[in-house]
């Protein structure tokens, strides 16, 4: 099964939730379970679970479950990113790319920017 290598960047203070890392590389299988489970067993190639192409909505849940170090409620709300967090896909607003339905491609650059610190 092919793997996707994604560059994920954080800005605007959201990096505080990810061990203060501004940039990370995420390796994801191109096909992920349709039930959005993110554990190692579910991501194994020989798992019996039904598969779908990995999309942005899955990446958000993957980041929450595997890389977020504190206060998940500040990153995810109702299965998507919390209002006030902007997402850019290859320097383009994710709204133009179908938001969570955007199918991830290898070498994609995904940026999460928090706007919750105003002023």
């Amino acid at each position, binding site marked *: 099964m092919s793997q996707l290598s994604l560059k994920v960047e954080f*800005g605007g203070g959201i990096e505080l939730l990810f061990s203060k890392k501004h940039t990370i590389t995420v390796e994801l299988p191109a096909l992920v379970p349709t039930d959005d489970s993110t554990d190692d067993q579910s991501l194994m190639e020989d798992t019996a679970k039904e598969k779908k192409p990995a999309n942005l909505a899955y990446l958000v849940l993957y980041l929450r479950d595997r890389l977020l170090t504190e206060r998940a409620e500040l990153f995810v709300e109702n299965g998507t990113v919390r*209002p*006030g967090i902007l997402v850019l896909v290859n*320097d383009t607003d994710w709204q*133009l790319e179908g938001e969570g339905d955007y199918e991830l491609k290898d070498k994609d650059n995904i940026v999460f*920017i928090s706007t919750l*610190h*105003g*002023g």
Partner: protein
Amino acid sequence: MTSCGNPNVEKDALMERRPKYDGKTKICVKCKENQGNVVIRHAVYCKSCFFPLVQTRFKRTLEPSINPAPDGPRRKALRAAGSLAVGFSGGTCSMTLLDLVAKTYLTTRPTGNESMKGGTDHPRNSERGVWKGKPTVCYVEVCGAFSGQIDQTEVIRAIVERYPNCPFEFIPLRLEDSFNPSWWSSVGGGNAVDSARSFGLDISDEELRLTHISQSTPPDSSALTALKAYLSSVPTLTAVNSTIQTLIRLLLFHTAAAHNASHLLLGTSLTSLSVNLISGIAQGSGFAVAEEAKEEWTPRPARGLPVRVVRPLRDVGVKECAIWNWWAGLHPVDRPWYPSGAGKNAVDSLTRDFIFGLETDYPATVSTIARTCGKLASKEDSDERCILCERPAQRRVQDWKAQISIRSYSDATPAVSGITKPTHLSDDEISNLTQAKQESKPEPSLAPYLCYACHTTLTSRSIRGMTAPLSAQRAKETPLPMWVRSTLDGVVAKDSVDSEMIQSKKLTSQDIKSQIEQYLIDE
């Protein structure tokens, strides 16, 4: 999903989330050539058109207010009466504001002969800026108010000083400067140490009576101790956040006035303006709702120029600011999201969560809030100003407040008279309840000098009790910010000398008869 009512009764009460962008075209609406990069209120813009778009909105808001006469021929010349001060927090929007100011008004023009011809490019225009002197950037460090927070002053200084040729003068302030006589003296407020009166506040009393702090006040009562005492005495977490905002605002105002600034720019975006408007109205500042968007402040004591407070990003959403920062390579200062911890349940935090949710699902409603509030005006003008927040204050607020609510019978003289008297009390009982107050010697009180919102902030108790229990002595000697003490020195002294005391008193029929007894003719 946003709820605007009772979904059991109203079919449309639950506003289902829907995509903001309909996917019809990805071409930029402005140049109509490039692929779009960002969606702003249903319109698609490319990266090249995005920067001029934000800059145009910024200039369109700011420039009409630069010249002293707002309707003057501004295209001909932009000349401010004084210098420029920028309030900077290091957050998303103020980062954008500083960048816009630097790139729009403070970039050095090329000196080649080709670019210096005439008109606005004439050399004499490049030598004279819009504002007089070097612009100042004021930053208020709030770490003193919260335990465990890191002082970010040097990080902010590095951000401000990285612009080419260092066009800004950086002025670091601290929240505790509000209680610091040295700072007050440095901004031209006067010598508070030699001040004749030194007032404290009895916060346990709804009348907010003023107490003279004795000379035996411990000498270690530093500004930071005073700040902590003040914040711990306000009754709710909502009030703590509101108080901090007021202190920051006045610190910026006084510092701007001290530097002879005619303009103070704040990085309030359209989104944060909507949050401030709704949150402010919820906390009782509806009378001064117009000041939330634009205000002109005259320093007390009089010095310098009137400071025009402008929010040039009030047509720019926080999303545009965040995108501007990212594409311009600017990184806002990292801060914990809710510095006051449990303060996430405060009115301003809850309002912010609501407005951000609304902006995600229905972006046009956020600008509607700001535009609608911009049309609001109070029924009557007022030349009075709140002594604490320096915003317009409604006359006779305390009387009105007493008429709409009874918080304690002993303090409710106006409320228990006339048609508003409680039906379960007789005239004699009401008279007895109010007697003690009328006979006691009136003490100076802060309440008559406050606006409704500030009085509510200081006195509205939470049903869950105080934020922290106060000792009786501390509650009676709550320190006051320097500008309040300074103004009080004048007004209380004046009131005690030449004011006329007027009190209303409900009399029983026996009292009335005894007063006119000598004029009655025997039957």
